[in-house]
């Protein structure tokens, strides 16, 4: 179709119009309702006076610092907020973080003596200020601009500068330097050195390197001491006497989930997906499990593509929830309704929905299953029930080595550390009777323990074969902690995968088996931790069907659209998950092509090679029964290379891994990449496997190009990455 007449257009328009009217029919023909428009909360809480007067705002909020940021894409603003947070945590000083566009500068000279002003300034383009800093720069640089003192002078004004720029541009950090120069000229006094960050590579390191010296100088210039800040809370927690129970969050992940209103499902509003299939994938499960779970997404509006990730939102296991409730002395009050408010919304937002209950926060919203961090232990020591416990926590927070052996290697969670410090028995089921209560304010728990995050898995299905179902392949994490003089070795369970395993048992009506105890020296046998999988208000259970809250995260891990391009996939263990999806994607395409063009339709397709590895073909061979069928449907275009590291050995007895098979197949591999313009995908362990495979690739390509792995090989690998023809989906 080379030309378009206006009649075509008319046909098109009518078609589109009809389609659009159909699509929007509900909205179009719905009765017009009065629109309720949420009103943005008024920024200026000071009813008094000029909203552009930052001095008045500082005085009102008892703030001694004002931080201006010149930001175009948000980076400078982030650093401004970080500086404000650090000033607060180090010195207990509150800051006013300001967009310079929203304020006037005539009274900059009126900044009280015990105050300081920070400038966090980005340089844009050819040495220009960011849009929001244009007026600020004009005011500072224009000598006829008068401050309230009637002069262009800022005698004695204390200021700090952090400047952001990019070394590959000519006018590196010009604006920050200009601010510094012009302020000095006006008689202002800089605190510490001027910080300069290079956005091209090392912004973060530049900042870290600069800030300590600056804070030292700041402390001297402002007459403040470090350590004054620990007690300034971020949040106010209040117990609510009466609150409509239907408005209390009991683990719902979004407002829509609580009010049961429609909306699309994404990371802000996960979809409770019914589990339609849940089965074990390992042939032998005596020491490990791997679950295959199919999540039904019908009528959710969720779509996905092969190679995408699914985020599963777990909850914390029952035993850890109870343990921490007891250690915090909240067990009796666990279901009390609480409201939480941020005391400085610019610096800290309440990380989960409220109002809620103590038990809900610990179960659904914060990550209490992680190993306790060193910093938090120091902060909690002052709430210890006795001097010994206090000394114990202080010791851990200051002695890195002891923390490492006792807490990190021992895999102790916060609740367990508190029990250990108070001399409680860790192996008993926690109760208020056997657990010492600490009087830690709950706001400290909220601000120091991060939000419970979704666990991401590479989707192991293709939407072309399974449009309404997302498949997850997850090896269940379970390992023993390293014993030390205070704590025995115990079984540690990964939160996400054990949550899935729990769901699998529940979905099939199975009972969880006891975990193998091993030798006597190890911890007492425990059952696999239980979870409240029925969800808040039973939302994740419908008769006998269980649901898991999920959302889809887009990835760039995709097959080339054209099936003629050869494809090489390397995915040992559960690294094979996305490749099952890839193969299914090609199978669906093969079926369509054969239907349309007959049995020879795949003749010009590129080779599809999968390098897979596991221990034994009879023990942990994932999807063993499915591969032959895929091979048949792909008419010889799909070859599988398997390394069974505990079954087939080299003549000298050494193990064979995927990279060895890749090397064995080097001629074909090089041909597919160099002549066939093929694509390579690596999925699985980032540290050893992925690195070894990349090295092997460099070796193969270097040799094929008649050079070395180090020079020609690495250059070829880099080029492949830049063209997105070598892609990684790896984890550590």
């Amino acid at each position, binding site marked *: *179709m*080379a*030309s*378009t007449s*206006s009649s075509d*257009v008319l046909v*098109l*328009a009518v*078609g*589109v*119009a009809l*389609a*659009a*009217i159909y*699509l*929007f029919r509900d*909205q*179009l023909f*719905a009765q017009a*309702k009065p*629109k309720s428009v*949420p009103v*943005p909360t008024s920024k200026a809480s000071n009813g008094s006076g000029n909203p552009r007067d930052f001095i008045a705002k500082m005085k009102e909020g008892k703030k001694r610092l004002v931080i201006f940021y010149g*930001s*175009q*894409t*948000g*980076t400078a603003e982030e650093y401004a907020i970080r500086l404000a947070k650090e000033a607060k945590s180090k010195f207990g000083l509150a800051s006013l973080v300001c967009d310079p566009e929203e304020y006037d500068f005539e009274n900059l000279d009126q900044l009280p003596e015990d105050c300081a002003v920070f400038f966090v300034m980005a340089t844009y383009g050819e040495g220009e200020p960011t849009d929001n800093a244009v007026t600020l720069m004009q005011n500072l640089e224009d000598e006829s601009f008068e401050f309230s003192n009637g002069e262009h002078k800022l005698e004695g004004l204390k200021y700090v500068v952090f400047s952001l720029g*990019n070394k*590959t541009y000519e006018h590196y950090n010009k604006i920050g330097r200009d601010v510094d120069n012009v302020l000095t000229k006006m008689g202002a006094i800089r605190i510490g050195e001027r910080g300069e960050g*290079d*956005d*091209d*590579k090392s912004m973060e390191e530049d900042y870290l390197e600069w800030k300590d010296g600056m804070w030292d100088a700041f402390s001297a210039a402002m007459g403040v001491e470090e350590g004054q800040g620990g007690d300034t809370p971020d949040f106010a927690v209040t117990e609510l006497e009466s609150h409509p129970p239907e408005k209390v969050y009991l683990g719902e992940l979004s*407002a*829509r989930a609580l009010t049961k*209103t*429609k*909306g*699309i499902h*994404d*990371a*802000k509003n996960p979809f409770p997906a019914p589990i339609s299939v849940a089965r074990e994938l390992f042939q032998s499960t005596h020491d490990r499990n791997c679950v295959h779970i199919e999540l039904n997404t019908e009528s959710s*509006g*969720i*779509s996905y*593509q092969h190679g995408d990730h699914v985020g599963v939102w777990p909850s914390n296991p029952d035993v850890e929830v109870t343990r921490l409730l007891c250690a915090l002395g909240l067990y009796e009050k666990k279901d009390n309704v609480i409201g939480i408010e941020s005391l400085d919304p610019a610096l800290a937002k309440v990380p989960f929905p409220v109002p809620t209950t103590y038990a809900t926060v610990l179960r659904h919203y914060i990550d209490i299953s992680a190993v306790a961090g060193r910093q938090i232990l120091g902060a909690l020591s002052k709430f210890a029930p006795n001097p010994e416990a206090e000394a114990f926590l202080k010791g851990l927070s200051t002695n890195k080595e002891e923390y490492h052996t006792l807490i990190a290697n021992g895999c102790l969670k916060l609740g367990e550390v508190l029990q250990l410090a108070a001399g409680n028995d860790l192996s008993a089921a926690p109760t208020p009777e056997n657990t010492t209560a600490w009087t830690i304010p709950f706001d400290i728990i909220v601000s120091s323990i991060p939000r419970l995050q979704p666990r991401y898995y590479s989707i192991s299905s293709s939407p072309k074969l399974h449009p309404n179902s997302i498949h997850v392949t997850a090896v269940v994490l379970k390992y023993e902690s390293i014993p030390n003089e205070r704590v025995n070795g115990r079984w540690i369970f990964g939160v996400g995968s054990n949550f899935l395993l729990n769901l699998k048992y529940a979905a099939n009506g199975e009972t969880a088996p006891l975990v193998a105890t091993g030798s006597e020296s190890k911890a007492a046998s425990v059952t696999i931790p239980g979870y409240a999988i029925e969800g808040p208000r039973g939302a994740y259970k419908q008769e006998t069907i269980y649901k898991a809250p999920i959302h889809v995260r*887009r*990835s*760039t*891990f*995709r097959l080339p*659209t*054209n099936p003629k391009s050869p494809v090489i996939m390397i995915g040992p263990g559960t690294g094979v998950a996305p490749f099952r999806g890839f193969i299914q994607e090609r199978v669906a395409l093969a079926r369509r092509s054969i239907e349309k063009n007959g049995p020879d339709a795949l003749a010009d397709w590129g080779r599809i090679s999968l390098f897979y590895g596991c221990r034994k073909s009879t023990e942990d061979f994932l999807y063993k029964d499915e591969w032959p069928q895929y091979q048949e449907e792909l008419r010889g275009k799909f070859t599988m290379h398997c390394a069974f590291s505990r079954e087939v050995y080299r003549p000298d007895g050494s193990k064979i891994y995927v990279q060895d098979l890749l090397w064995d197949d080097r001629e074909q591999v090089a041909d597919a990449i160099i002549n066939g313009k093929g694509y390579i995908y690596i999925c699985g362990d980032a540290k050893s496997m992925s690195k070894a495979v990349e090295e092997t690739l460099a070796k193969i390509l270097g040799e094929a190009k008649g050079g070395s792995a180090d020079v020609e090989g690495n250059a070829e690998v880099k080029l492949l*990455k*830049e*063209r*997105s023809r070598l*892609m*990684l989906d790896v984890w550590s």
Partner: protein
Amino acid sequence: MATVDLNLPISEILHKGTVKSHDEVAKSPGAAALVNAALPREEYVRFLMILWHIYGAIEEALERHAANTVLQPTYNPILLARKSSLSADISAVLQVPESSWQAHPIYTITDIESTDPSLLLAHSYARYLGDLSGGQVIKHRTAKAYGLDEQSNIGLSFYTFRQLGSSVPATSQGDMKKIKVWFKAGMDAGVGDDTKLKEALLREANTAFELNAGLLNDLSIDEKLQQPVVPILQPVPAEKTYSIATVFSVITAICLAHFLLVIGGFTGAKGYSKLLAAEQWVASLLS
């Protein structure tokens, strides 16, 4: 069109030779509204929908001609392609599933054969390099104005790229610059010393800018909305009602978008005159 030394590499020819067209776009009221995120919510969505069609056409054509020697060095849909992220963003902003707003009939009609696929390079250049530069400023403003969360990236994926040669999101200006440098090197490699092609590409790139200017001019900027816009993702009443006018304007936009892509340079100057005719036709419908 400015006269540019055709012995320069194509990346420089296009940079120098489109300064005027580029500035005209950048200074247009539509561009200002976009940068200041002053568009009403519906209008912003409409803009994304038009872009979705434009990128669909460009990316499908690039895909068909991936092996073309001029296009091959910059062919990297995994890094550059915007169509699916636009779709996700529209969905996030409207809070309706992707399938419900994508008008399927269009898919088949956009299948246009081009006369010289090499010229597609001019369109990649005008769009992708713009997204990598000014797009990053728009992203931040848009996030603030419509209450979108930059951390989660929901509703903002159109503006978000991955680092060159990696799956890690690109966050700094430096990351963006590396992609731009890579893209320009690929253009130069693909075009080489072919002055005839260079000339044609320069003409095409200017046409692409004109078309983009037309797109921005079509945005209706509401004076009242120069004040902060109501955040999009605040809880809104479950049932949203679109006025007939809004829906009609969406349809018109889609039609216009279709013209942009039909004519989008694939048929040269003859196409451009058709665009003018089409615009008159659309205008007559609206008046």
